[in-house]
């Protein structure tokens, strides 16, 4: 991390600058219309100020999004009547609460998806019939738009009485098992012919080859897949909240924002989702570094 702070901050500054530059033309039409109706002229200074402080801008300015993130999290929990300080539980109006609703489904789905992905990969590597039959289905499953299949999963599970977190977790698992399957099949097959021959000279059984060679060899691949998988799981959980008219979760927040034209709310929910995803990927990265270092594979 040392020495990389300046380039990273530079890139962030450039993105923010481009964003601000885009806000003015995108939002200016509304300001000009208002001024035209009122029959007044607007100066450039006024135009800029107006475009950066609208209640329902087409494109919110960065500081508006940051302020909304702050108000919908810390301020809401600290001072809100339903906030953590007053009630001892998270406020249903705060992004913390919505993020947790989405995150819990994400983690359950990610767990299911990872487990399923590893099991399928083990089967594919060890069984020729599975090798030929499973992968095409796994690939086909990912070619179906998740937006098309998510409502069906929710409706079907609803019909059998499964509601709440589980249907969302199933959609998360549906998206996150695939990178794990692909990565683990590659990882479990990564030992070369020589290493497999070596095991053969010891007359090692297939479970031994798996435990002592294939599984440890696949660890770097597993972690790369988990990073992709956990981000996909979050997308799955958010998409799972969209078609149901859900009242909780980051997806519900996005949806209600778009119903009521609350663009700032939409953008803050998007950023909250991005922050959650980045945090989870960072946690997986930390576990990866710790594990590989303990295994002696990272120098």
């Amino acid at each position, binding site marked *: 991390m040392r020495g990389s702070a300046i380039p990273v901050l530079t890139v962030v500054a450039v993105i923010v600058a481009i964003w601000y530059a885009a806000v003015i033309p995108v939002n200016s039409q509304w300001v000009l219309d208002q001024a035209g109706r009122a029959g007044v002229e607007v100066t450039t200074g006024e135009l800029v100020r107006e475009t950066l402080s609208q209640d329902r801008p087409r494109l919110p300015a960065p500081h508006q999004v940051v302020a909304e993130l702050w108000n919908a999290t810390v301020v809401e929990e600290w001072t809100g009547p339903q906030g953590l300080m007053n009630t001892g539980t998270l406020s249903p109006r705060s992004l913390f609460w919505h993020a947790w609703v989405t995150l819990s489904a994400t983690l359950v789905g990610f767990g299911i998806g990872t487990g399923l992905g590893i099991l399928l990969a083990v089967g594919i590597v060890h069984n020729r019939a599975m090798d030929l039959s499973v992968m095409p289905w796994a690939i086909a499953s990912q070619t179906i738009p998740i937006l098309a299949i998510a409502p069906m999963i929710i409706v079907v599970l609803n019909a059998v009485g499964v509601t709440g977190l589980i249907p969302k977790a199933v959609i998360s698992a549906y998206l996150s098992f695939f990178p794990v399957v692909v990565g683990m099949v590659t990882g479990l097959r990564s030992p070369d012919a020589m290493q497999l021959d*070596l*095991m*053969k000279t010891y007359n*090692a059984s297939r479970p031994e080859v798996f435990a*002592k*060679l294939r599984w440890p060899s696949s660890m770097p691949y597993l972690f790369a897949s988990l990073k992709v998988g956990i981000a996909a799981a979050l997308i799955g959980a958010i998409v799972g909240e969209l078609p149901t008219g859900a009242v909780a979760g980051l997806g519900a927040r996005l949806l209600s924002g778009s119903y009521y034209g609350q663009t700032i709310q939409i953008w803050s929910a998007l950023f909250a989702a991005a922050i959650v995803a980045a945090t989870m990927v960072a946690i997986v990265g930390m576990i990866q570094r710790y594990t590989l270092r303990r*295994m*002696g*594979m990272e120098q």
Partner: protein
Amino acid sequence: MSESTVIEARDLGLTFETNDGPIHALKDVTLTIGKGEFVSFIGPSGCGKTTFLRVVADLEQPTAGKITVNGMTPAEARRARAYGYVFQAPGLYPWRTIARNVTLPLEIMGYSRAEKARRAANVLELVELEGFENKFPWQLSGGMQQRASIARALAFDADILLMDEPFGALDEIVRDRLNEQLLALWKRTEKTIGFVTHSIPEAVYLSTKIVVMSPRPGRITDVIDSPLPAERPLDIRDSKAFIDVAHRVREGLREGLADAV
């Protein structure tokens, strides 16, 4: 078959069927290796020297002829863990320390914890790697890694050691040192060693028997019983006897190539 025969091949053949027609990797190979011999296989690429070693190890299946290892088929010998195999590359597991790489075969064969520790210490001393038990492979030089892989092959104390160009990737100075160590190790352990090499001096220096092979089809052109004494300092390579053997090997290689073209 005499009491001391370890490996016996008779009219051994191995043909790979490829899209460009059959490739005769081995043809009519007849060879007897006795207990405690150090046998080198030398020849150009494609002469079948590695293939022969792999047939002995049951890593390839012959398509003609007969071969026995310790009086058994190669598959039975492999299941009986009759040999240790050293590959061209060390192939140490990067996630295991040197000691745990060496005990890998012992884990699979179900040795006790104390026995694993004892044997690891023993073979690491044989290859002069004491003190490196807890290092990871990447912390060792290429020569040290290859020594660790030899220790791994020795760990379960099989009578036969099969080595497929183990020093091929190392520079000549390291190679000389390892050759000296290997001879000392062979003398101490009295193993039967099959050793594949590209290098004439290496073959002559190490072996009690040199098998000269040639390609297309892979076959034996000459078998030389070395007249060199058992005691072999490195400077034996300047002696008349050594140079004579090396000359005969070179002649054998040249004839084999002349036939093939």
